[in-house]
């Protein structure tokens, strides 16, 4: 099957060659890569000389397309000396300029795009001069390479430093490229999004990724399908883009190749077959790239003199030049501009730089002047334009002329609310449009105080902006009314309305009021129209939601600007930039300007590297983090990546790890017949997780936040490092995904149960029969209590059982909730439910009996009684009071209670009522067994409106207790 596909691929591929006329030479090379050495020899040879070593090759290739190209060529074609004039001119420039260049550089120009080249010229000149005698062009080129490698720091000195440094520089660059690639592989952005959908490439990272001419894939469009052999999809995309190709999501007629290593028969491949698109394997892609450029890293020193010359002669005719021509076809303009700029541009740049470039940032400099310049959202801009153009007619004239016909357009709003992400030109559009229509724009933004206008100062005498806004809005009414003829039209732009906060009290409300009375159009601008603050404002405004411009649109505009500034960038790179900044034009321009400071030629890779950091700041869900840490490749992650992952949510990740670490079969253990290795690793991991817990206590309790990394190390990284590997299921029917950390739920259940237990404990304490602590209650008492409470119900006859149980409950003042708690806390998974075997009739009888008894029951429980009529729970809760057996002591007790109650809340009348009531109760109630009757019912009645729960009147005489109990339960529920 596989081979079949391959064959098919090959056939298609050949066909593709026929179709795609352009990259002939590469194609010939690909179709018979190593089989025909003679054929390959000729392209190979020049390759040897033109650039050696992959790193150097790359740079030299860059070189070929860069603005230095002329120079390169110039050097290369030294012998032919075709462009002698130009060369001499340039050399002249170089010779003359260095000092000035340096000066200019020190002046920190904004647009020193000429500078690097200048300097390079000068720098190069010196070495070439020195070298001309000794070595040949090859070495001269080497020095050029060093230039390139040092392009970030265009410092003359480094360039002038000896060759070895240069060589090393090139090597260093090569080395630097590798980790970058590695990063792409490991933490490829978006990679996690597709986790589970796509497998890892089978031979990941095993193949050497070829270097090719930078634009060898220019004009080609690729679609990637399925899993590739060695590259992650992102890497492949990257590779293609780096070489000037385009990657799209779906197959269309324009697609040149479908990149796939296996035929998964998906939609893409069927479509491609339909359209006859060529299939390309990953190897094919590599060959394609490789063919565009010297394949082997040859020996360096050998081809020095004549070979070098020869090569130089042959080289220009061959691929590089052709490629250049080809791709420069696309950006011919840029290319043309390039040389002229660098030749004549020194003076020009100086002027430019000194006059314009100084003061303005590009974002200001290239701010659109006309509505048509605005990128994207054209229809919205048009809408804005129409609205503003019709504003006066709509609101002023109708208002003036007949009142009956006021606002013929019902949907018309007096203000506009523009919303959209930053940097997509909201403010700009507002300004440009109003400017075009001849309105005078007054901008009020977050830098001004926009609080509610002081109502007392009428018509804005005060200095605050708010007042002046009011003044403006209403004054315009005046002016509009008085001299219409003048047409001094004004528009108010309220920028950043969602930023109206703390200082701007009543800002939005005031703004709405202003809109209502306004005689001038108001344009409000915000970032998030769904913001809570703007909810009311939205009703008064016509809402225009700006969208992000597409990357193509942005790239187009960016290219214009880059060309204006003499910056050499290709469109693919700019598209990448547009994508990276997430549609923020302003940010794109800022980035571009910043990059222009250090380089005059911007490649795809530069943008990638520079903006890598911003791409990295994506949210990683804790699950993804755990997946990554525990995954097969978990062992290959760098330490900082692991820390990043585990710190992505320092609370949740450890919990998820703890929940799931048992499920992983560590690849670390290797062959492990009896599982002892895994068990040992588990024990170590468990200990480490426990360590994490201890450290966490230190962090939280003693605020040792510097330990947070140690904590994530102990609780996440070590367990993951020990156990990463395959996940297996431990339970039948479990899905093979990481579970959410169970600790949180269990902990909250524990907390709830502890509270319930505390309630039972309090009741038992209040019964005065019990005096131990909570722990003892659960550990020692519960077994027996449960037995005493449930066993009779199962064995004895109904009446007897109920009586028995109720007696016990009364003795310990256990109420029905407590009963449930006791049963609940004694349930064990896999054990018999203690309530099993109790007939429902008995249960019902028990409830009934208990409730009946409640009329006679004293307030035994310390249920914290909410005092009716007092909204807030009293600080000191009134507790029930237990009556001693001796009658004589009743008085004393009574006093004590009254005393304490008065103490508690003597300031409320209700309390006094209660006190009186209590005393009365005590006096009337001299019987021995019955103790205090807290007549809460009465107080409840006195406040019946407020506490409807208490107004069961029929029980007011006998069921006093019940009332108290009810409210007690309510109190508990509240808790």
């Amino acid at each position: 099957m596989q081979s079949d596909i391959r064959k098919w691929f090959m056939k298609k591929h050949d066909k593709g060659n026929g179709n795609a006329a352009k990259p002939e030479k590469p194609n010939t090379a690909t179709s018979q890569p190593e089989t025909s050495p003679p054929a390959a020899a000729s392209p190979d040879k020049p390759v040897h000389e033109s650039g050696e070593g992959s790193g150097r090759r790359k740079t030299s290739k860059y070189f070929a397309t860069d603005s230095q190209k002329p120079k390169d060529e110039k050097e290369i074609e030294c012998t032919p000396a075709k462009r002698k004039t130009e060369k001499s001119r340039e050399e002249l420039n170089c010779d003359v300029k260095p000092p000035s260049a340096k000066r200019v550089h020190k002046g920190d120009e904004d647009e020193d795009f000429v500078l690097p080249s200048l300097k390079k010229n000068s720098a190069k000149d010196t070495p070439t001069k020195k070298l001309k005698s000794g070595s040949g062009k090859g070495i001269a080129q080497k020095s050029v390479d060093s230039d390139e490698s040092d392009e970030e720091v265009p410092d003359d000195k480094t360039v002038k430093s000896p060759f070895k440094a240069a060589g090393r520089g090139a090597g260093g660059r090569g080395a630097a490229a590798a980790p970058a690639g590695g990063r792409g592989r490991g933490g490829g952005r978006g990679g996690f999004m597709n986790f589970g959908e796509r497998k890892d490439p089978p031979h990941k990272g095993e193949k050497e990724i070829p270097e090719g001419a930078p634009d060898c894939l220019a004009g080609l469009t690729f679609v990637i399908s399925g899993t590739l052999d060695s590259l992650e999809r992102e890497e492949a995309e990257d590779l293609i883009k780096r070489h000037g190709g385009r990657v799209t999501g779906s197959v269309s007629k324009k697609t040149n190749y479908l990149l796939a290593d296996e035929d998964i028969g998906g939609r893409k491949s069927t479509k491609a077959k339909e359209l006859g698109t060529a299939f390309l394997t990953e190897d094919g892609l590599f060959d394609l790239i490789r063919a565009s450029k010297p394949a082997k890293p040859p020996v360096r020193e050998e081809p020095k003199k004549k070979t070098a010359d020869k090569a130089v002669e042959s080289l220009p005719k061959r691929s590089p030049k052709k490629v250049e021509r080809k791709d420069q076809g696309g950006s011919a303009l840029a290319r043309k501009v390039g040389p002229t700029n660098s030749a004549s541009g020194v003076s020009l740049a100086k002027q430019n730089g000194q006059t314009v470039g100084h003061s303005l940032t590009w974002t200001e400099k290239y701010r659109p002047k006309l509505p048509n310049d605005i990128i994207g959202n054209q229809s919205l801009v048009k809408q804005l334009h129409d609205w503003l153009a019709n504003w006066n007619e709509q609101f002023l004239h109708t208002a003036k002329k007949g009142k009956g016909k006021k606002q013929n357009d019902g949907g018309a709003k007096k203000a506009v609310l523009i919303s959209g992400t930053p940097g997509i030109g909201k403010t700009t559009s507002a300004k440009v449009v109003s400017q075009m229509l001849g309105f005078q724009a007054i901008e009020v933004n977050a830098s001004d105080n926009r609080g509610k206008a002081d109502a007392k100062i009428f018509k804005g005498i005060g200095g605050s902006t708010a007042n002046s806004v009011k003044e403006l809005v209403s004054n315009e009414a005046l002016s509009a009314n008085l001299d219409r003829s003048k047409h001094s039209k004004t528009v108010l732009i309220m920028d950043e309305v969602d930023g109206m906060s703390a200082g701007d009290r009543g800002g939005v409300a005031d703004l709405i009021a202003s809109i209502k009375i306004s005689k001038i159009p108001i344009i409000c601008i915000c970032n998030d129209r769904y913001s809570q603050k703007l909810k009311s404002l939205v009703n008064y405004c016509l809402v225009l939601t700006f969208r992000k411009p597409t990357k193509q649109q942005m790239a187009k505009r960016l290219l214009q600007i880059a060309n204006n500034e003499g910056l050499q960038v290709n469109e693919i790179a700019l598209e990448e930039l547009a994508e990276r900044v997430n549609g923020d034009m302003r940010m794109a321009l800022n980035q571009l300007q910043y990059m222009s400071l250090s380089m005059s030629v911007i490649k795809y890779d530069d943008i990638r590297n520079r903006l890598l950091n911003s791409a990295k700041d994506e949210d990683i869900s804790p699950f993804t983090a755990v997946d990554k840490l525990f995954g097969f490749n978990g062992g290959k992650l760098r330490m900082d990546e692991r820390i990043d992952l585990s710190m992505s949510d320092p609370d949740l990740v450890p919990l998820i790890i703890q929940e799931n670490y048992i499920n992983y079969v560590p690849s670390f253990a290797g062959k492990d017949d009896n599982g002892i290795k895994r068990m040992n690793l588990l024990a170590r991991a468990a200990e480490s997780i426990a360590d994490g817990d201890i450290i966490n206590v230190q962090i939280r309790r003693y605020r040792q936040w510097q330990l947070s990394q140690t904590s994530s190390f102990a609780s996440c990284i070590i367990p993951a490092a020990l156990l990463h590997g395959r996940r297996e299921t431990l339970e039948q029917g479990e899905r093979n995904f990481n579970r959410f950390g169970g600790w949180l739920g269990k902990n909250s259940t524990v907390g709830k149960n502890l509270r319930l237990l505390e309630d039972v404990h309090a009741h038992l304490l209040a019964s005065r029969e019990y005096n131990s602590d909570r722990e003892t209650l659960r550990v020692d008492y519960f077994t027996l209590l449960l037995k005493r409470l449930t066993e009779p119900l199962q064995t004895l006859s109904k009446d007897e059982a109920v009586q028995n149980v109720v007696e016990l409950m009364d003795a310990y003042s256990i109420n029905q909730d407590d009963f449930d708690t006791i049963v609940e806390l004694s349930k064990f998974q896999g054990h018999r439910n203690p309530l099993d075997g109790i007939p429902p009739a008995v249960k019902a009888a028990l409830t009934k009996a208990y409730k009946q008894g409640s009329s006679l029951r004293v307030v035994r429980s310390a249920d914290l009684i909410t005092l009716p009529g007092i909204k807030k729970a009293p600080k000191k809760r009134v507790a029930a009071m237990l009556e001693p057996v001796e009658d004589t002591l009743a008085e004393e007790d009574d006093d004590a209670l009254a005393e304490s109650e008065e103490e508690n809340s003597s300031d409320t009348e209700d309390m006094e009522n209660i006190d009186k009531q209590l005393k009365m109760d005590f006096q009337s109630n001299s019987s021995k067994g019955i103790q205090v009757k807290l007549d809460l019912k009465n107080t409840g009645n006195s406040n019946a409106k407020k506490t409807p729960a208490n107004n069961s009147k029929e029980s007011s005489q006998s069921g006093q207790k019940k009332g108290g109990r009810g409210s007690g339960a309510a109190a508990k529920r509240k808790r």
Partner: protein
Amino acid sequence: MLWVDKYRPKSLDKMLVHEEVAKNLKKLVTEQDCPHLLFYGPSGSGKKTLIMAVLRQMFGAGAEKVKLENKTWKINAGSRTIDLELTMLSSTHHVELNPSDAGFQDRYIVQEIIKEMAKNRPIDTKGKKGYKVLVLNEVDKLSREAQHSLRRTMEKYSASCRLILCCNSSSKVTEAVRSRCLNVRINAPKEDEIISVLEFIGKKEGLQLPPGFAARIAAQSNRSLRRAILSFETCRVQQYPFTNNQVILPMDWEQYISEIASDIMQEQSPKRLFLVRGKLYELLINCIPPVIILKRLLSELLKKLDAELKHEVCHWAAYYEHRMRLGQKAIFHIEAFVAKFMSIYKAFLIATFG
């Protein structure tokens, strides 16, 4: 009413065990001035009973008229105010509370609340005693800071207030506090003492005790009188005419732990570890204190273990218990112990049986 509470001696004269201690205490109290007291000893030995009896001796029946209060205290701790909720049992003469309930904020209880209560002289109607009594439970669970603040209070307000401290282990009470109290060690009652108590109860309840039955209960009670009486009554509920070979059931949770232990011994695998985790959670949810779980688990495991592994396993249990006290999430530590045990035991099994 349960027998434990029904037959709890109410006065110092009626003590069945610790008669000597009771006699001394009575003397101490009747001779007017009573120092601060620190009762310590294992649970189920009768500390609380003694304390209640002492209070009764001091204040008469008034000490038994307790009410339960749940108070919220506002405490000014520097920059912020803290709300503390505390349950206390109080009579006119004494207040009983459990300061360690407040967790790591127990310091404030000692500093503010206890101090405040200690400051106020009781309004003593009968003029019997010029002081009131504060009973503090579980003093050994107080944090170090709280104990430090306690010692100053003890000295400063000793004129108006006596403290009675109660704890299991005096080693966790600081030297300073201990030296300010009269330490009263309450031993766990001996087995024959327990037997005599059980027989006393049996006689009062009119039960026929088969010979040796009480001894069996006593042996299983781990010398905790409370537990002995409770399981005595459990047996009574279970089956009355006692038979000589009647099984004395352990507590429900003990039963569960021994199931866990046999699970662990049967198989040592990740799957089993996962199962055990679930069961441990079950215990924790039922409010069994983690320390007790670990202790019980160890003793269950030791029962079935070969002698040569016992040392090592005990070492690890102690190791993880210590760490559990340092940490917060008990389950992690118990699970780590189980994992460790599994790995040790598995290695041992492989080494012995291949």
